[in-house]
């Protein structure tokens, strides 16, 4: 049984280096090409100064870079700043117009999979879908932890998808939904910031035992928890562990996967997320999109360690390549 999954990388993974100006977009694309992550996901609000005013020159450089390294533009992550103006929310029409603006930019960049941020109202995607369809792009709701396909907000999106049945709407699950054990980069950070070891152990153990993590806030408060400890208890409700087979529920609408990871170990596995089972499920479900690496460990370690996103992404792709190879003849 073969598969039709491609490997890619989201430039989000290099946020540390972009922030510090130690890497450019071109540097990141070069890395991606080198490790066989040929599909590129861009977050324009990270990478394009002056957004949303993107010059033709910038676009030309982008396509030149793609050609130079043999990579392909694939995905475009948009935001929806409903609270752009103090004191009022964007109207429905303004929100739809904002999505259309992103569709236009996505087309210029050659990207076809647009990440709709989770907070995007279903009605906005409903009304932007025809424009997206005509432009040949898809608006894919990023379902990241703690969201899931039975979440009240996501149910609203499913209603719209069921009613509209548009090829321009779908999902982009983020594999952070499948955090089987508490990320140690996060618990170790809490220790460095002064959390009591016994409190950290309690949070980690409750999470790893798949216990009632929503009970940790009260528990930590009753233990006299300080801000770091309370923050760790809160984090325990932001990660989720779910059976990776959850991906099959909407696999027919899944057109891209954000391959979230927090720590690639020296042994070449993700510390928390069972990628082996996830890749098997995606192949079983016939997923034919991109596994786009999304490294999000820098924020947990940057206080005490040098961040090497290139090394992390390189390890991630070594793992993905290995796991996918098991499904190749």
């Amino acid at each position, binding site marked *: 049984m073969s598969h039709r999954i491609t490997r890619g990388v989201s430039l989000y993974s290099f946020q540390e280096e*972009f922030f510090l100006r130690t890497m450019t977009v071109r540097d990141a694309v070069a890395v991606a090409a080198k490790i066989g992550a040929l599909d590129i996901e861009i977050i324009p*609000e990270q990478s394009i*100064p002056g957004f949303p005013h993107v010059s033709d020159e910038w676009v030309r450089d982008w396509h030149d870079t793609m050609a130079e390294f043999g990579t392909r533009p694939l995905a475009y992550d948009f935001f929806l700043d409903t609270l752009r103006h103090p004191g009022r929310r964007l109207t429905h029409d303004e929100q739809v117009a904002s999505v259309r603006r992103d569709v236009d930019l996505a087309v210029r960049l050659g990207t076809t999979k647009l990440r709709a941020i989770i907070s995007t109202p279903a009605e906005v995607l409903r009304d932007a879908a025809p424009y997206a369809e005509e432009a040949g792009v898809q608006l894919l709701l990023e379902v990241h932890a703690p969201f899931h396909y039975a979440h009240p907000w996501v149910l609203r999106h499913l209603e719209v998808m069921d009613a509209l049945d548009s090829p321009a709407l779908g999902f982009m699950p983020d594999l952070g939904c499948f955090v089987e054990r508490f990320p140690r980069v996060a618990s170790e950070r809490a220790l460095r910031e002064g959390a009591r070891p016994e409190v950290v152990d309690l949070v980690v153990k409750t999470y790893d035992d798949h216990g009632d993590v929503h009970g940790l806030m009260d528990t930590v408060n009753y233990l006299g928890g300080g801000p770091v400890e309370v923050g760790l208890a809160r984090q325990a409700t932001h990660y989720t562990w779910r059976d990776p087979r959850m991906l099959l529920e909407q696999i027919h609408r899944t057109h891209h996967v954000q391959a979230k990871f927090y720590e690639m170990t020296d042994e070449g596995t993700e510390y928390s997320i069972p990628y082996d089972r996830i890749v098997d499920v995606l192949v079983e479900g016939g997923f034919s999109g991109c596994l786009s690496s999304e490294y999000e460990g820098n924020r947990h370690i940057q206080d005490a360690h040098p961040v090497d996103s290139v090394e992390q992404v390189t390890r991630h792709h070594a793992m993905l390549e290995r796991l996918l190879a098991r499904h190749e003849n």
Partner: protein
Amino acid sequence: MFEKYVIVPGTLRNVVEDGRTTGFELGVRMPYYRGLGLSMVEDVAVTVDGVRAAPERTTFTVHGNSYPLTGLGEVVEDRWELGEVATVAVAHPGGLAPGMHDVEVSQRLRISYMPVPGGGRARAAVELSA
């Protein structure tokens, strides 16, 4: 995230205009993984040696564009980019004394997908640059 990079070393200096020291300025980054339209930057509060700069005496400059801090809410056509060093200037006749200063920068960012503001606090001991 990015708290340790908020206060940029070597950027605390006095501002001299027409031979007079009118205040001080500091290089500051936003603790966020994307750029943000300025209208969503609710506050960048600088506290030096325990004295918080009054918002009305504070100016915010990114890539050459200067704005009164209290006026950022109107600015929908400019952004504070990812990792961009903005200059926050405070009118303070005489400026700061030479030597080390306890600098705290507290930012409030209106992030639409979050129920509470983003931003946060950064603090560092910073030496006044020449």
